């Protein structure tokens, strides 16, 4: 048998003949379907007209994260239709209002290495960090899966990305993701898989890996998968020791297969990245075609900093922000919006004092939802405003007015910018705060539960 990439291994294990003669497309059984209030709502009426039920509600991983809580009566109506559908179809309800679907997925025992996961949202690719095939799709594709349990896909070729070196304290998954997009281009991996090999000295943290896999789709990739290793094993063991799913879900059939790519697998392209050679990067407003070192950008005034989303609202992101903002305040007039990626992240930051530090520094902390990143609510920008964001898209109008400007940067750069009020290189702030080995201990216990409010 021909040597296979990790994506080929996961998918080809499940398929037989192509769907039609001479076609490159196969029917592939799906292990888990991710959905949320916005994109599932789009298919409900059509689904009802077909008059069938979901093939296996237990395989549906449905969150409520877009219009949560709703900011308009129309959105309340969309959310309510979705909630009724979830109930009618007997889909597990334990994920509703728990945070952003993509983060919930990787926090959950139902998501295991080797699975085929399709989701009604482009950032479903994030689960690739757990060694899954995870791909985003539109509502019609998802409806077909809900009806049949299968997705019709071609098997993508892979681009191998090998990361080496030692992570500096000021470098984050966001910088690495931007470096990859800078090198291969915004559409550089369309119809391809990105296969990530972490060969760095101390290994890239799982939170940063989530960001890298999350942004695979910004380079056009079908999926972005990390090769399973010890770091993943430790994460999964810890995660699964604490049961997080409702008793109504039977976990027996959610099996993992710890696959590895063949050594002599064929890749469409290979990309080597030494993390020590990356400077803190920023994506200039509009699209992802202009990614530059932050110290080469004019330090323009910034009115809002957003630290949140499925790309940049995890504990690691909020911890570096809190460490830089500790005993400091945001610049006068600065709107610092913090949106944790899940309510679990929210509780963790409550417990360990990160939120107290951020609140004292002047941050506005929201519940976990898609919020400002999706241009939905709680942090939209107006004409002429500039926002530095840890989210994944800087597209025109994405976060509000088409005449607002969105810069994407790491949580460290975002926090430094919040302090100064201008686009700011985070490195001097880490030095000044004496932060040396951030990645080995992001929030030392000695920091306690913050100061007194």
């Amino acid at each position, binding site marked *: 048998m021909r040597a296979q990439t990790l994506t080929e291994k996961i998918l080809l294990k499940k398929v037989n003949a192509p769907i039609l003669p001479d076609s490159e497309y196969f029917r592939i059984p799906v292990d888990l379907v991710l959905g949320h209030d916005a994109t599932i709502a789009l298919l409900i009426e059509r689904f009802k007209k077909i008059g069938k039920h979901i093939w296996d509600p237990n395989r549906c991983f449905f969150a409520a994260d877009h219009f949560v809580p709703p900011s308009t009566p*129309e959105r309340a109506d969309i959310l309510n239709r979705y909630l009724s559908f979830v109930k009618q179809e007997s889909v597990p309800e334990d994920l509703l209002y728990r945070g952003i679907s993509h983060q919930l997925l990787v926090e959950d025992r139902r998501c295991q290495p080797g699975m085929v996961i399709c989701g009604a949202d482009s950032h479903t690719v994030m689960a690739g960090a757990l060694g899954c095939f995870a791909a985003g799709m539109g509502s*019609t594709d998802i409806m077909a899966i809900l009806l049949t349990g299968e997705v019709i896909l071609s098997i993508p070729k892979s681009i191998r990305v090998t990361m080496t070196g030692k992570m500096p304290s000021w470098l984050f998954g966001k910088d690495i993701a931007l470096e990859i997009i800078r090198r291969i281009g915004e559409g550089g991996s*369309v119809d391809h898989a990105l296969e990530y090999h972490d060969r760095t000295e101390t290994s890239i943290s799982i939170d940063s890996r989530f960001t890298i896999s999350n942004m695979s789709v910004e380079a056009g990739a079908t999926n972005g998968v990390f090769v399973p290793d010890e770091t993943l094993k430790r994460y999964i063991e810890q995660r699964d020791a604490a049961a997080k799913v409702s008793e109504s879900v039977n976990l027996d059939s959610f099996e993992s297969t710890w696959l590895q790519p063949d050594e002599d697998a064929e890749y469409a392209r290979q990309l080597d990245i030494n993390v020590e050679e990356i400077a803190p990067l920023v994506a200039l407003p509009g699209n992802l075609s202009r990614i530059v070192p932050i110290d080469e950008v004019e330090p323009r005034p910034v009115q809002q900093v957003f630290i949140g989303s499925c790309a940049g609202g995890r504990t690691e992101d909020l911890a570096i922000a809190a460490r830089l903002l500790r005993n400091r305040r945001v610049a006068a007039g600065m709107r610092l919006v913090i949106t944790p990626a899940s309510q679990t992240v929210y509780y963790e930051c409550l417990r360990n004092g990160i939120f107290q530090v951020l609140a004292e520094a002047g941050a506005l902390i929201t519940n976990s939802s898609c919020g400002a990143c999706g241009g939905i609510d709680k942090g939209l920008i107006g004409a002429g405003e500039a926002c530095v964001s840890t989210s994944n898209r800087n*597209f*025109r*109008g994405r976060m509000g007015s088409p005449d607002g400007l969105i810069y994407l940067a790491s949580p460290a750069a975002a926090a430094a910018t919040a302090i100064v009020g201008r686009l700011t290189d985070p490195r001097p702030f880490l030095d000044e705060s004496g932060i040396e080995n951030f990645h080995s201990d992001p929030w030392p216990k000695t920091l306690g539960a913050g100061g007194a409010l």
Partner: protein
Amino acid sequence: MIITGNALMMGDNVNTDVLHPSQFFSLDDSKVRTGFMQAAAGYEKVGSSDLSGRIILAGDNFGCGSSRETGARVFLLAGVRAVVARSLARIFSRNVRNLGLLAAECPTLPSQIHDGFGVKIDMNKLVLEIPAYGQNFPLTRLDPFWEAVFKAGGLMPFLGFKDE
């Protein structure tokens, strides 16, 4: 299969957020329709105008970004006949094809085609004809699966489901 219409040219890396900003996300088709191209600089007016009979031509990676299907559905609501780009983003190309619209790739498509020029897509001969240019551009053959989906009128009818 042959489709004719008038060209509307867009650029490279045109994402679904500019084609259909999230503020226009709705279950109400008339609201969805009003959002077409409302964050695409210079296209706001044409996006609001009657686009029936238009063929959207575009550069590389057309439709990158969000999977929100309102961003594909709006092409049908606006009366767009087909989409031809130098290359198509994966999720978007699936979305429009699943809804029964032709989305084809034309790797040598020039960057500037005059607005309103007559265009003929000939999927039998696999050429894009632009008579005013006096030149034909080769189209990439659709996979037999997508050909069958197009002939059926979308993914649901292809699978034998009646959703409308």
